[in-house]
């Protein structure tokens, strides 16, 4: 069952429709409801390797629907601590719960100050309104 449209207010957002949940010096990353809706039902998740270094605004992996491939853009720089195996095994989890069970990776931030450049909920909603 696809989730209904929502954007939690405790997340930081990236204009490429990715979110970050900051937890101390770590962050959990995922894609927004808008991103999964635009793609349609996900059928493949190509995650980065645990231990890999990812950079803000660069691709750290891919998700695919039947019709399309989309790069995952990282909102923050960091080192990959954990990949969500549930999404590897059942990519549609992202459609069902994009902010909960559908998280994609957990990272240790290497430049925590980058969070200042991310969007608040209101700023992200403006991005959606302008899209």
């Amino acid at each position, binding site marked *: 069952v*696809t989730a209904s449209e929502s954007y939690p207010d405790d997340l930081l957002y990236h204009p490429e429709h990715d979110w970050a949940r900051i937890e101390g010096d770590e962050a959990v990353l995922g894609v927004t409801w808008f991103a999964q809706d635009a793609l*349609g*039902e996900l*059928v*493949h998740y*190509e995650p980065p390797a645990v231990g890999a270094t990812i950079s803000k605004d660069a691709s750290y992996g*891919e998700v*695919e*629907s*039947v*019709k399309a*491939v989309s790069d995952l853009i990282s909102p923050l720089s960091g080192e990959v601590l954990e990949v969500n195996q549930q999404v590897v095994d059942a990519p549609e989890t992202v459609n069902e719960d994009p902010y909960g069970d559908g998280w994609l990776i957990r990272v240790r931030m290497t430049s925590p100050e980058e969070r200042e450049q991310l969007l608040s909920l209101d700023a992200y909603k403006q991005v959606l309104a302008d899209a």
Partner: protein
Amino acid sequence: MQTLRRTPLHDRHVALGARLVPFAGWEMPVQYEGVIQEHRAVRTDAGVFDVSHMGEIEVEGPTARDLLQAVLSNDVDRLEPGGAQYTLLTNDDGGIVDDLIVYRLDEHRYLVVANASNSDAVRDWLKERELRGSDVRDVSDDYALLAVQGPRALARLELEPAQAFTWSMGQVDGVEVMINRTGYTGEEGVELACMSDDAGRLWDSILARGVTPCGLGARDTLRLEVCYPLHGNDIGPQWDAISSGLAWACALDTEFTGVERLRAIKEQGPEQKLVPFVMTEKAIPRQHMTIANGGEVTSGSMSPMLDVGIGMAYVPAANAKAGAELVVDVRGRPKKAQVVKKPIYKKEPSE
């Protein structure tokens, strides 16, 4: 920018919340609820596709047969009134200008159904070669075409089964339709041609009978699972019909454009072949991906029924046998695949 054309059912697609995309100059529904759900509806029950963007060209007159026999790969003389035939419009090299279904309407009248993207080219091709006593008319705007496909398609429409590749006139809930026993999904079903003005009424009737509306996304995955080639992806003017695996649609004992070239290729054996394959590593192949041991992917997707990546590719003939291993370059990552026999997806035999 060119304005996109719309089928007579456009408003209905919008009302159903379809995702509309440009396709071959038309604004077409790619999906309503979701590609996978629509795909499964067709494999397990019944789905309806608006394929009114396809072209319809009538060829009429005492020499209509001569015109078609001279330009089409299959043997038009094997086509009786009431029959339909899959055939190819070929160029001098035996390449495929379009793949078509020809319906014989009566003794001297044929209906040619062409792909939307090639419809004008097919019409012009036929028009330029018109003979004295043959008349070529583009009647695409007169007709709407709805494909109703799936194991329960006939039951849902209360139609009797009939032989594949035949047609008859009939009615669905009072709408007069040409009932064509053809399709592009590998399932039982019909393609219904009606007057454009009746399309809305016919569509509403079909949905009221519990048939799931399906978009071009599911149409593509359905046809790929059963290895029906898509013109512009898997077949085209740059590939000859033999290499494309369509020798069965070429009557090489008749005379048509490119036949000598095709006879020669048949004799020597093609250098490359279009083959179906299944990924043996987790990855989804896509059109234009290269194959490390030779060749290129022409269509690729996730198979909603098999839940693995599937596709078709031209590969060197030596590597075209079922079981041969392919290595697909998935955006820089080499992923293994295996050539399989057609079709990729085969229905379990029913009790």
